[in-house]
């Protein structure tokens, strides 16, 4: 039975609501549930999934909260509603105890003129006016929202540049400024390496490896995923490069992105010529020869970029990555690889750039990998509910996050998928990431452990391979997370790159690929 409740004039942000939904879905006897604001879009979503009946929908406006619960009995519905009320009141009382809360930015800035950075995470189509208000008050901006129109991004970045302000984003999820983790970011040592990146988890992985190698971060800035496109022309990347060049604490600069358009590439190379600090670039999937004839050190994976940055920051020459102290000898792990006839790899990622890096490293070796971010159109995975042959999924992409929280915030969906893959007899290897840090789930490793245990109870021949993107100072604790995974029989590698390479080892040992 489906039960609907409309709460008039009650607003919560969508992330908060998705977490509420997820909490009630955990109640035994609840088949499915959703708590959403009554926008037309959301109403259609809820009706389509059978969680909202028509008459109820007509009563709700965009300002109203809609609760839809499909449960086995009225008792279960009551229990769910009670839990929700508790969540609602926790939210409001939490606010009183915590930061000062305002209804509008104007009101907030009037009472705190000392604010110097806005973090904006509101639906993209509303972002322009809110961000503009911040810029006009002289605040730097980190814009987390996605779905911001291209022309808005250009207008905002141009205004920011004219006024000497950072406008990180849209779609910027990670930054570290003055040692403070913004959005999804890790607690890394401070140091002399300045980063600028068009990718969130890419920035996390590099900063974390730098930390593991004994280096430190001065500033880690985001530009937004589209910044290096032909339309945006690297506006913010060029600006952040200059900012890092002028920053006294930064001695080496790292640049992380997918390959830019040719025009933008030329601009970056021109800019780099005028910077007298060493620059390491990681254009994932780009041609390493792109940098021939320049002073820029080109790398192709996140780990190699981090290694080159740390080496350079210590004034040492960059040598082969196999010399890295992080490089794990996998011979010990080799013996533990379970035998299996199942041929395929299933990569289930919460971090987009980590998924992309895995795809780059596996695509050719495996003669094509299916994905929702496929390198080759031929390998576009049409039906994302079912993996096909070798598959890598970026579970932070739209299909998985429509009406559901990002898997880095709530790893439940990914955990379910791990179990699902184990039910497919062709699955031989499951490749995973585990992203720690501020903003992320309080214990993503535990979610993996639970799913892997369930999977192993059915299939003992699957090799589970993972890396943990985190540091010892992250709230979730790197060592604790790694140990929990190892205890569950997961092969844990120090970096995403090494995890992927280990997957190839597994396949070689099983004779799936040559080598």
């Amino acid at each position, binding site marked *: 039975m489906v039960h609907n409740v409309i709460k008039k004039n009650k607003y919560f942000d969508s992330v908060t609501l998705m977490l509420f939904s997820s909490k009630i879905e955990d109640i035994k006897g609840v088949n499915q549930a959703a708590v959403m604001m009554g926008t037309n879009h959301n109403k259609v979503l809820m009706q389509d999934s059978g969680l909202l009946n028509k008459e109820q929908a007509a009563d709700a406006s965009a300002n109203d909260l809609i609760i839809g619960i499909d449960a086995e009995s009225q008792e279960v519905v009551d229990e769910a509603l009670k839990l929700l009320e508790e969540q609602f009141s926790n939210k409001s009382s939490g606010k009183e105890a*915590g930061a000062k809360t305002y209804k509008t930015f104007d009101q907030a800035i009037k*009472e705190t003129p000392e*604010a110097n950075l806005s973090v904006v995470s509101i639906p993209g189509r509303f972002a322009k006016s*809110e961000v503009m208000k911040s810029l006009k008050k002289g605040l730097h901006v980190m814009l987390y929202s996605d779905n911001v129109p291209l022309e808005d991004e250009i207008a905002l970045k141009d205004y920011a540049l004219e006024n*000497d302000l950072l406008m990180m984003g849209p779609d910027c999820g990670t930054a570290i400024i003055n040692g403070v983790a913004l959005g999804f970011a890790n607690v890394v040592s401070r140091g002399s390496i300045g980063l600028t990146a068009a990718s969130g988890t890419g920035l996390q992985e590099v900063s974390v490896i730098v930390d593991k190698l004994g280096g430190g971060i001065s500033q880690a800035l985001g530009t937004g995923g589209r910044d290096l496109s032909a339309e945006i022309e690297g506006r913010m990347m060029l600006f952040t490069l200059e900012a890092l060049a002028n920053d006294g604490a930064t001695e080496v600069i790292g640049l992380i992105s997918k390959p830019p358009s040719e025009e933008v590439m030329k601009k970056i190379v021109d800019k780099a010529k005028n910077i007298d600090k060493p620059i390491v670039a990681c254009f994932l999937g780009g041609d390493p020869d792109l940098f021939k004839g320049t002073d820029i050190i080109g790398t192709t994976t996140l780990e190699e970029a981090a290694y080159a940055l740390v080496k350079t920051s210590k004034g040492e020459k960059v040598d082969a990555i196999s010399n890295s102290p992080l490089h794990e000898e996998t011979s010990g792990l080799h013996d533990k690889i379970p035998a299996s006839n199942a041929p395929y790899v299933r990569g289930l990622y919460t971090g987009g750039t980590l998924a992309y890096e895995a795809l780059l490293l596996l695509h050719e070796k495996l003669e094509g990998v299916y994905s929702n971010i496929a390198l080759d159109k031929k390998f576009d995975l049409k039906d994302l509910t079912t993996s096909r042959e070798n598959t890598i999924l970026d579970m932070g992409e739209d299909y998985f996050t429509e009406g559901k929280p990002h898997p880095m915030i709530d790893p439940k969906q990914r955990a379910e998928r791990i179990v699902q893959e184990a039910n497919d007899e062709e699955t031989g290897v499951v490749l995973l990431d585990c992203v720690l840090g501020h903003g992320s789930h309080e214990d993503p490793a535990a979610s993996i452990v639970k799913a892997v245990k369930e999977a192993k109870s059915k299939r003992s021949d699957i090799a589970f391979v993972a890396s943990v993107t985190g540091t010892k100072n992250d709230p979730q604790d790197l060592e604790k997370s790694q140990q929990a995974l190892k205890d569950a029989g997961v092969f844990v590698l120090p970096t995403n790159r090494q995890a992927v390479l280990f997957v190839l080892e597994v396949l070689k040992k099983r004779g799936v690929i040559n080598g």
Partner: protein
Amino acid sequence: MAKVNKLFSDKLYVANIGIENFTLTLQEQNVNTVHVDWSPPAGGDENLAKVLDILSDERVEKANKEAFDRINDSEPMLVDVVMAKDVLPGMKKNTIGHAGPTLPWKDMCGPLQGAILGAIVYEGLADSLEEAEKLVLNDEIEFVSNHDLDAVGPMTGMITYSMPLWKVENKTFGNIAYTTFNEGLGKVMRFGANGPDVIEKLKWLEKEFAPVMKSTLKSSGPIALKVIMAKALAMGDEMHQRNNGATSMMVRELMPHIVKTQQDNKELHAITEFLTGNDQFFLNLAMVAGKAVMDAVKGIEYSTVVTAMSRNGTNFGIRISGMGDTWFEAPVNQPEGLYFPGFTAEDANPDIGDSTIVETVGVGGFAMGSAPAVVRFVGASSVDEAVQYSKDMQLITVGLSPTLVIPTMNFVGTATGIDARKVVETGILPVINTGMAHKKPGIGQVGAGIVKAPSQCFEKAVKALGEKM
């Protein structure tokens, strides 16, 4: 690059707009953070957002500035006591003015119907309430909105042919506004009561009290109401729920002249007992001052400033300057607050009265921060909460009053000149302190509390003006 590199050497102070979790993680890192509990403009309604875009226009800004200046330049003066039949346009023996926009008898709420029947008896048109009702059903009574009589009245707001009225002149702009005497507390016609004692009290006001007030004002000369209002804010009044300070100040103004013009000791006792026995005596004067001020703001082309907010117990209506005398209506809300012993929320009638003119002019709920004594009575749990209400109102007005200031908020001016656009954009609704009437006719007041103006009124108003741009 000076600004960016300064950021790198400064302490971070973050304004987080949106996802609350980001605020929490910043606090875990001991970073100074303020949270903006963002909600979409116009409640995410894209059509309304488009209208707001259209109204984001220099002509509107200019018109609203003009409205704001007129409000602040206005000087409402209490000048006289007059009879409704002598001054109100089109007033006949069977005309009844009531609060809020007009509506058919069948749609009227209990208290309004009760008051009307009592008013018919008061006018001597019928001997009993039953007879009075027959006259109504035979269409022999004409109803009119007080606002269309240049007048206002609290709660049901009865204004009839024989009633005496305070006359207030806006000295700056020359317009006139009227209101009735406040009858006192308890079983009174404004709350829908209509028994013989209620009628008797009204007769006394007409026959005995009014002539004395007329001669008193003749002796005193015009009394500047805004000055009293400004002083009363400093005495802990917000002038909707609490008028203790303002009433005392007013009585102080009147007293020497009452004594001077009134020789009969027994009469003097009755008059002074009435004046000093009703803390809300000044409410009607605050209202008529508001009406005199806001009428001077009417009809400024393109202005989205609200010139009237009023309720008839069924619908809430607002007028905006650029749309003249058109009411934009929506069903009234139910107030929340405290009840007199023996009554509960079940007994309360929805929101009613012209008294919201005081919020329109920037006091009442808008000045709640100045009245700690009524904070709990109107449903706020702390003084901080009351101050927050006043701060929120600043987000929906053109500006702050230069003369009506709130001492408890460091002498910041009250939020003045409600901009209907800002109400729609922010979703912050005007907050109103109000009394509550029993929903059945003839019983009277059951409590007091707080109520918000319905958002649809403002949405309709901006849409209408948007079409004129």
